[in-house]
């Protein structure tokens, strides 16, 4: 299938028009008869003992149907570990209370739930729940939290996770160096700011199954809901609405458990929708990191040793911090061949907002450090930044810091060169306005940790009229995942794209396909659909081969017909062939399971082992103008070049890359969730600023298609990689413009002036 008919074409996604006319029912757009309105009471303190909770006044309010505190739900705890569709056991200490009862550990922690006839009554009821708090000392800085005697966020200590890599001989590596470059880099909390706040509706159906229609990236949370409530897993059904963005913030449980509890206790449908402020308070953030990098390098630019210390603020509960910090550890070297590596990573509990998944999952933070570090090396050696990288880039067949061999294409030099070339002629300086250029290369995994034994299932079926149904439990938070699955089935079965339907995920309707996280959905579910469609194709062609008296290999399917390849006039409409198959009882549907490669966990002492199925490589280049009087930075041009393996829908891929680039520019220049003593000081979208349409110009996108990825037709993943190198590239450009290094994000005017010694 070298010449694709549908794959590789920039098609209009099937969900696009319905969204544009406002017909798509998002989670908050769905109503049930007799529906109640839920609300959550949240802690006003980042660290406090709860002396007393008295819900009696709230319960007495007319219109209030249910008030739940921890005592009413058996002091239930929820496992907030990585959502498994496999048998993987969770890490110890990964539980969080559903509702706090003895103490609260962050501001915004849930304390009580209300369901009432109207939203207004529910809000009023929250005010009538009497909670007496006794504030306790908190700890708000991971460095402080590691010191002896620091307040302990949860027992036994504040260390949430530690990871290490030991490769080669670090001392010998530094001894062999001509020069050692040592720097500390810092990055802030970042808010996902998806446009759709968390929302869902739940009800108990006639079989006693709790149905939850929700905005989520993870269907498999039905298991967590069941376990938390102490009910069988087959008694919880999740329907995934089209989500209004996720970016990792809807990877952890949001409203699901609260909704299930309220629906079960009231036996009525319940709706729960967060306000924007509540959303910012209640869900995870991107991890702030302190990153100490010490690099040994020869005068010729070859890196001899790298020692890295990463400190991540996990916030008040572990959630996915152990995994995010592992990702950071694995990619801490960047896409470079370094023989002697020593990485120590620690994720530390504080009374800050909890941190967890955010697009890139621990990748963008070390990228900022390792790519700034490469520019610092180039500067110290008087070398070209691309030349220093070229000498050290990983190539196919090389091993990473964990000893994993790179099997796919690693188009690092080409992507960097192409991105830089796309910037065109350099803009000249103008008075106090200095122009600078920078780029960053990266490596970012796609697919989950190999010891999670990740799988995806898809069911593909042909109807008698030649149309196709895909049932695949893949949430679509906006990336066009479902539409791409349609393209794959259309290609393989030779059915026009408009004749393919993919259902939105529903645990009662679609086989489980795993999470829309870790840039895995096209890779995993794309392969599952490819397998299922290929099995049906084989059935069709085998039967047609008898009819035409030709070998199956000499037949093809296209435009809703089966035909003889070298004599296309000998053909049959697909529905006729389907009728023949159906009359003979041949299977016209197939359930496929795609399995990622499985490995055992890495060695915890050395970090050695295979960690991810594969990596995406690429680069981002940017030109900025910095006003040295005001510190203001203007992005003049930017270009992203990624090897996506194969672009199934180039329009969707370009959209992912431009969107990721913009998020990355925001991370570089404006986004900063300010947290002081556990309190978010930027709790709304007028205080926490994200890029608007007038902030940055269009990012040029250059797609490389090596065809070497593990996804369908050689695709790699691009959802997360799109953001990874952006902030690093901007910091390199600003450093280039100013001639002084930038080591902290975001690069605000204040930081620019400080770097220039003007503040």
């Amino acid at each position, binding site marked *: 299938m070298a010449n694709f008919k549908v794959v590789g074409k920039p098609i209009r996604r099937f969900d696009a028009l319905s969204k544009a006319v406002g017909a798509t029912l998002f989670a908050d757009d769905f109503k049930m008869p007799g529906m109640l309105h839920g609300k959550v009471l949240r802690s006003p303190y980042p660290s406090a003992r709860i002396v007393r909770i008295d819900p009696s006044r709230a319960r007495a309010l007319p219109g209030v149907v249910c008030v739940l505190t921890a005592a009413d739900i058996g002091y239930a705890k929820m496992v907030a570990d990585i959502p498994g569709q496999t048998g993987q056991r969770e890490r110890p200490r990964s539980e969080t209370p559903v509702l706090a009862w003895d103490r609260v550990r962050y501001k915004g922690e849930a304390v009580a739930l209300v369901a009432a006839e109207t939203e207004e009554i529910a809000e009023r009821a929250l005010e009538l729940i009497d909670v007496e708090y006794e504030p306790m000392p908190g700890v708000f800085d991971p460095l402080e939290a590691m010191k002896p005697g620091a307040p302990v966020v949860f027992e036994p200590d504040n260390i949430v996770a530690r990871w290490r890599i030991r490769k080669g001989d670090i001392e010998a590596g530094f001894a062999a160096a001509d020069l050692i470059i040592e720097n500390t880099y810092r990055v802030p909390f970042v808010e996902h700011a998806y446009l759709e706040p968390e929302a869902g509706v739940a009800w108990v159906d006639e079989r006693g199954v709790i149905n939850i229609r929700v905005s989520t990236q993870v269907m498999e949370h039905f298991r967590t809901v069941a376990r938390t409530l102490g009910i069988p897993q087959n008694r919880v059904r999740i329907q995934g609405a089209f989500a209004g963005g996720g970016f990792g913030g809807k990877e952890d449980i949001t409203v699901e458990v609260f909704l299930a509890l309220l629906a079960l206790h009231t036996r009525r449908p319940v709706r729960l929708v967060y306000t924007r402020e509540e959303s910012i308070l209640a869900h995870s953030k991107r991890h702030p990191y302190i990153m100490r990098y010490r690099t040994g390098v020869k005068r010729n630019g070859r890196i001899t040793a790298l020692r890295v210390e990463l400190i991540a603020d996990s916030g008040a509960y572990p959630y996915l911090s152990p995994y995010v910090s592992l990702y950071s550890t694995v990619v801490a070297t960047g896409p470079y061949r370094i023989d002697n590596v020593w990485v120590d990573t620690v994720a530390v509990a504080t009374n800050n907002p909890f941190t967890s998944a955010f697009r890139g999952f621990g990748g963008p933070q070390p990228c900022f450090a390792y790519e700034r570090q490469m520019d610092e090396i180039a500067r110290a050696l008087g070398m070209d930044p691309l030349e220093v990288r070229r000498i050290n880039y990983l190539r196919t067949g090389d091993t990473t810091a964990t000893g994993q061999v790179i099997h796919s294409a690693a188009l690092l030099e080409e992507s960097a060169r192409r991105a830089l070339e796309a910037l065109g002629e350099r803009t000249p300086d103008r008075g106090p306005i200095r122009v600078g250029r920078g780029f960053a290369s990266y490596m970012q995994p796609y697919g989950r940790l190999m010891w999670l034994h990740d799988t995806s299932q898809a069911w593909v079926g042909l109807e008698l009229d030649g149309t196709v149904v895909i049932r695949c439990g893949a949430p679509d938070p906006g990336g066009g995942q479902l539409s791409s699955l349609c393209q794959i089935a259309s290609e393989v079965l030779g059915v026009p794209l408009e004749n393919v339907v993919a259902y939105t995920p529903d645990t009662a309707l679609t086989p489980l396909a795993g999470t829309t996280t870790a840039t895995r959905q096209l890779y995993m579910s794309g392969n599952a659909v490819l397998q299922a469609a290929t099995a049906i194709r084989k059935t069709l062609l085998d039967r047609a081969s008898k009819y035409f008296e030709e070998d199956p290999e000499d037949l093809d399917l296209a435009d809703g017909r089966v035909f003889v390849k070298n004599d296309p006039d000998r053909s049959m409409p697909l529905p006729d062939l389907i009728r023949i198959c159906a009359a003979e009882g041949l299977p016209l549907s197939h359930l496929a399971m795609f399995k990622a490669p499985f490995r055992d966990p890495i060695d915890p002492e050395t970090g050695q082992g295979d960690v991810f199925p594969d990596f995406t490589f690429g680069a981002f280049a940017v030109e900025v103008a910095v006003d040295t009087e005001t510190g203001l930075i203007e992005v003049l041009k930017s270009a992203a070049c990624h090897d996506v393996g194969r672009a199934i829908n180039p329009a969707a891929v370009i959209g992912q890359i*431009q969107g990721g680039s913009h998020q990355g520019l925001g991370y570089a220049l404006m986004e900063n969730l300010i947290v002081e003593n556990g309190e978010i000081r930027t709790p709304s979208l007028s205080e926490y600023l994200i890029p608007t349409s007038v902030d940055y110009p269009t990012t040029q996108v250059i797609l490389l298609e090596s065809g070497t990825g593990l996804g369908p037709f050689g695709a790699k993943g691009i959802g997360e990689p799109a953001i990874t190198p952006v902030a690093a590239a901007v910091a390199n450009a600003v450093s280039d413009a100013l001639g002084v290094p930038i080591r902290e994000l975001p690069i605000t005017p204040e930081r620019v002036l400080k770097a220039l010694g003007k503040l």
Partner: protein
Amino acid sequence: MEPKLITLKINGRTHQVALKPNVTLLRALRDLGYTDVKNGCEKGDCGACAVLLNGRPVNSCLVLAWQADGAEVLTAAGLGTVDRPHPIQEALADSGGVQCGFCIPGIVVVAKALLDRNPNPTEEEIREAISGNLCRCTGYSLIVEGIQRIAESKESSESPEAKSNKAPTL
């Protein structure tokens, strides 16, 4: 204060509803079933709830329903449907400017207001017009391109076949 009976003319349909003075137009619209008007922040920060009020774009969360008494309200769903989409909706779907799509209904009506007063906007004018509509997925470029395409296709729509026979006129 007591509820007052007001008249809302939404997408050509007249609704008479009794509402308290503190009910926003956003709440009133969504309660009446106009769920294409999205609630992204309820503070006027995001633009997801934008509608046209007598032809002018407003964030419906910042307008009290009483203030819209008797006014014409146009939402994205009133502009077109899946069967009869407005060219702006068609163009945004075609350009790849729709990802999660939560911001799109607001952008559709803001783009309509822009094209009504300026049929041939520059890229800069388009960016300025939608600067009150946050989008977290796309980086805006494909949305801007989509709106630009409308302007361009209108220019060439003197030839009758260039006009979609399904689409209502602007």
